């Protein structure tokens, strides 16, 4: 059929379609007299038109129901998921299906979530992986735990998590006819779980009763982090593109999710408010069932809900108590995010206040309210008084209450700042290098604000000092050493003037300042400060006190950094002993001290000791933090480094791969930590000359680092440098030259003055020229490199020596023998003092010296180096035989 014929058919079809039967027939026969086929066509269409029972007459929904099947696909029943096998379907969301699974060896049960139809889109796969990462990060009794994760052979991802047998929060409360305080206590437990997630910068975004189960023993579990989002910073909102609304349940959506505004912890606070509303009133704040999406939106973003007190059926509590609950709930659910509770913790505090019958913090601070609350708590004396007495009492109470609340506020504030410190420290612990240019800007702004707040705390010098110390340490982790310096010194001065020089708090400040001096590479001063702090702590604190252990660890680290390995080992052994003696159970602090001890042994060249210590630490870390914790990855890398030093590159590779696997699962495939893992693995491959395997790893690492740190950054340069090395080894000179030049350009930009890395980049670029026999081009580059090394690291540094040997080689090849001999000899003399006589650079130097002196006719000198060459070659051969 062609278009013209179809046109002809349908014109006729429409013409006769609505005619009564006989007229239709007559008309068709008249018009199709010469084209019977046309008549057949039109008749068949009319027949279908009359039937009206085709697929198109049904609803697309029914079609969807048929092709999008549910239940356990038979193919899945035959699969094993690690040690698990599926038992039955538990439930399903838009994304994954959750099955009950049994562990075949142990008989224990777990829940397995499988991404249904993984083929559909990368978006879904990424979201699924993100949930898995989120669960891996969270470790809280009220959050379902992640056990295992993998993919099926067909690429379908799955993960195993704790199976929670319980009923949804609201159902539990209804079934048990829980009282309001009971409901609030359950709700409080939910808040704690959410707060734990927030501490890890994770917003849940889909809180609702069906995701909150209560177990028979009354404990709660938070489930389904399917659309949870990792925040980049405490106050930074999630980007607008993924507010998560599309995936969440509209009845629990916050206004900002509907408006497409940034979401953050304030969004979870709103949703907690909705859950609380439902718990208090037995219904949702907005009835969306009979509204169009537009009306629903208006209700949520403009009107706000009815007061819970008005909506509730429960009347067993007083009107006054309801007034507080209204405030609590509606503060959490405020349309404007900035007027909600600032943190879940603040919400928890008000729940506690309510349960204790104390004034809420969220309550507008009115005299009547405070007085009312006070009078209620102390109703006996008040009601016993006469009317005039009440007025007097009222005034006294007013002033007393005001004074008390001010004092309480100060105490609460101090407690709060301490919690903030912990919060912030947790925030940056282990993540300090994470902070690339863009992020650090934001975090630094945050800390700057903290400093301003701290400065205004003049009335509380002790709290202020504490804050200065915390904020100073944060600046230090962010690499803002100057600001860290002034804050840590301010903390020290303040404590000295408050408590005198010989005081435990002063000791803490001394150690903190000492740690900063390590970062500033002022090891002498660092050692002095830490020793002084340690001595004070030992005087004021009992043996085995954590402050002593942590100062001892710090001292060990200084000694390690300054190359005093033997002394460092002694101190760190003491640190391990201190950490090991107090608690009955091994702790993460013990593991940290042992790790540092292992590092020192490693740097001191005691590889076997480092190896066995690392193994202990690994076992300990696995026990303390679980199999897939990033610290496990760190320990595996340490073990790999020992193997690498031993020249067991395949073993090293094995460790590095295990580490990378964990890092990737934990941080995701495009995290800067993953880039670091790729890089060490790539190096192990380079040493096996497996350049084709290594190159893709570096490409991946490069892409990540360019994205995270920007194109001009030392981390990017370091990856480019590895790639340049590979290109050179494969004799791809053009590529190697381009890479080396980019490295150089980056270092010149980043370190605007002189830096030894600029020297390294120059020397590497020269190597590329030399490999192409372009000695005249290499020469000025090497001369500049020597200048940089001499200035930054000293004339006698190894780098200076090697660069001079290389310069000697370029001069030799240009037949400038006298100059060549002078440079090579200078380099040779630097190296012989510091390295093993068999190192390749010394061998090369001797060969070049022989050649230069031969050409210069200085047979005696040539003979001297010939003899040395023969000597080292003989020793090397003997050594090889012994091995």
């Amino acid at each position, binding site marked *: *059929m*062609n*278009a013209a014929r*179809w*046109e002809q058919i*349908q014109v006729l*079809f*429409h013409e006769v*379609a609505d005619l009564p039967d006989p007229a239709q027939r007559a008309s068709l026969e008249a018009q199709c007299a010469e084209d019977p086929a046309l008549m057949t066509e039109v008749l*068949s*269409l*009319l*027949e*279908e*038109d009359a*039937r009206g*029972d*085709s*697929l*198109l*007459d049904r*609803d*697309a*929904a*029914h*079609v*969807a*129901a*048929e*092709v*999008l*099947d*549910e239940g356990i*696909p038979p*193919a899945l029943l035959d699969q094993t998921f690690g040690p698990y096998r599926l038992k039955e379907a538990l439930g*399903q969301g*838009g*994304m994954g299906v959750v099955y009950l699974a049994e562990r075949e060896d142990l008989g224990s049960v777990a829940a397995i979530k499988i991404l249904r*139809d993984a*083929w*559909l*889109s*990368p*978006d*879904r796969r990424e*979201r699924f992986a993100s949930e898995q990462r989120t669960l891996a990060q969270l470790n809280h009794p009220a959050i379902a735990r992640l056990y295992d994760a993998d993919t099926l052979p067909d690429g379908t991802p799955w993960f195993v998590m704790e199976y929670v047998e319980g009923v949804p929060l609201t159902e539990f409360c209804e079934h048990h006819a829980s009282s309001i305080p009971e409901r609030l206590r359950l709700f409080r437990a939910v808040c704690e779980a959410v707060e734990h997630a927030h501490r890890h910068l994770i917003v849940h975004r889909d809180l609702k009763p069906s995701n909150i189960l209560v177990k028979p023993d009354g404990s709660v579990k938070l489930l389904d982090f399917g659309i949870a989002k990792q925040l980049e910073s405490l106050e930074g909102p999630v980007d*607008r*593109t*993924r*507010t998560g*609304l*599309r*995936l969440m349940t509209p009845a629990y959506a916050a206004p900002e999710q509907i*408006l*497409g505004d940034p979401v953050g912890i304030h969004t979870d606070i709103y949703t907690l408010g909705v859950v609380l509303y439902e718990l208090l009133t037995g219904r949702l704040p907005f009835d969306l069932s009979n509204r169009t*999406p537009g009306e629903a*939106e208006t209700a949520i973003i403009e009107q706000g809900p009815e007061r819970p007190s008005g909506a509730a059926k429960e009347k067993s509590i007083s009107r006054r108590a309801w007034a507080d609950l209204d405030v609590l709930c509606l503060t959490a659910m405020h349309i404007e995010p900035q007027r909600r509770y600032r943190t879940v913790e603040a919400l928890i505090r008000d729940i506690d206040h309510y349960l204790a019958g104390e004034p809420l913090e969220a309550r507008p601070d009115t005299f009547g309210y405070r007085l009312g609350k006070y009078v209620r708590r102390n109703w006996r004396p008040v009601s016993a008084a006469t009317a005039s007495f009440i007025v007097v009492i009222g005034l006294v109470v007013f002033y007393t209450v005001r004074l008390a609340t001010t004092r309480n506020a100060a105490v609460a504030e101090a407690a709060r700042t301490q919690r903030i410190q912990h919060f912030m420290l947790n925030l940056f612990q282990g993540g300090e290098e994470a902070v690339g240019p863009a992020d650090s800007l934001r975090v630094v702004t945050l800390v700057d604000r903290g400093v301003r707040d701290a400065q205004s705390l003049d009335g509380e010098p002790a709290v202020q000092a504490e804050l200065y110390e915390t904020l100073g340490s944060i600046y230090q982790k962010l690499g803002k050493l100057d600001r860290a310096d002034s804050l840590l010194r301010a903390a020290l001065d303040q404590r000295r003037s408050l408590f005198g020089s010989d005081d435990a708090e002063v000791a803490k400040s001394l150690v903190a300042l000492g740690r900063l001096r390590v970062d500033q590479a002022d090891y002498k001063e660092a050692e002095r400060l830490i020793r002084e702090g340690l001595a004070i702590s030992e005087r004021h604190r009992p043996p085995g006190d954590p402050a002593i252990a942590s100062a001892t660890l710090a001292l060990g680290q200084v000694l390690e950094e300054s190359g005093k390995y033997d002394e460092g080992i002694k101190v760190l052994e003491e640190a391990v002993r201190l950490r090991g003696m107090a608690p009955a159970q091994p702790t993460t602090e013990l593991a940290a001290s042992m790790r540092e001890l292992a590092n020192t042994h490693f740097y001191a060249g005691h590889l076997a000791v480092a190896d066995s210590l690392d193994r202990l630490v690994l076992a300990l870390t696995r026990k303390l933090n679980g199999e897939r914790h990033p610290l496990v990855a760190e320990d595996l890398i340490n073990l790999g480094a020992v193997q690498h030093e031993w020249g067991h590159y395949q073993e090293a590779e094995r460790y590095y791969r295990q580490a990378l696997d964990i890092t990737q699962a934990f941080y995701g495939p495009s995290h800067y930590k993953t880039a670091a893992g790729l890089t060490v693995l790539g190096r192990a491959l380079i040493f096996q000359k497996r350049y084709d395997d290594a190159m893709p790893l570096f490409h991946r690492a490069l892409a990540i680092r360019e994205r995270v740190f920007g194109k001009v950054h030392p981390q990017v340069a370091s990856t480019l440098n590895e790639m340049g090395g590979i290109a050179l080894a494969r004799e791809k000179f053009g590529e190697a030259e381009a890479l080396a030049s980019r490295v150089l350009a980056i270092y010149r930009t980043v370190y605007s003055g002189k830096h030894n890395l600029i020297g390294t980049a120059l020397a590497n670029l020269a190597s590329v020229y030399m490999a192409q026999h372009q000695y005249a081009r290499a020469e000025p580059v090497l001369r500049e490199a020597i200048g940089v090394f001499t200035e930054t690291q000293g004339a006698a540094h190894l780098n200076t020596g090697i660069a001079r040997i290389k310069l000697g080689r370029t001069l030799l090849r240009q037949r400038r023998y006298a100059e060549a001999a002078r440079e090579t000899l200078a380099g040779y003399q630097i190296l012989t003092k510091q390295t093993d006589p068999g190192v390749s650079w010394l061998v090369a130097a001797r060969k070049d010296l022989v050649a230069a002196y031969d050409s210069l006719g200085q047979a005696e000198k040539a003979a001297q180096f010939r003899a040395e060459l023969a000597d080292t070659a003989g020793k090397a051969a003997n050594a090889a035989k012994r091995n």
Partner: protein
Amino acid sequence: MTLRSIRTEHGLEGSELGALLGDRSALDHLFSVTYEELRRLASSVRRSDPNASLSPTTLVNEAWLKLRNSPRLAGVPRLHFKRIAARAMRQVLIEAARRRKAQKRGGEALTIVTFEDAPDPTPTGADQLLGLDAALQELARLQPRQALVVESRFFGGFDVAESAELLGVSEATVLRDWRAAKAWLARELRRAS
């Protein structure tokens, strides 16, 4: 999921759509949403959920509400968005039908099927859907506008007025197109089965 037919088929023109379709992540996003909405729809049908508000119309409207604020889709007129969503619905369903059939075929070469085990001769929903897709492609060759009417109404839940506005024709034309196309497609499906 294959998105290539979206790029090459008729009916989606205009520079802003071109730009939008060039953006894989916006599309990917849309497909995820569509898929999840369809799942919701399918399971409400299966549970015979009396909540009658679920229909392709609601789904596409909700998808629009949910996605319109994402920056890549901002500025796309609502009807154009809905048209893309209808296409997405179609694609997702067709792909699901294909997968379903492929699963059934899996291992066909190895198993010997007894007569009792032979597949039910009545065509399944998946077969019909694939048949409809093929017939729609044929219709698009004969009369592109009619294919679009079917796609927007059946998969996208457009009402007559919206289809008319989208295609720049009168409502009467939409009704005529729908009726003729429906009859033609029904006949093609019957012939194919």
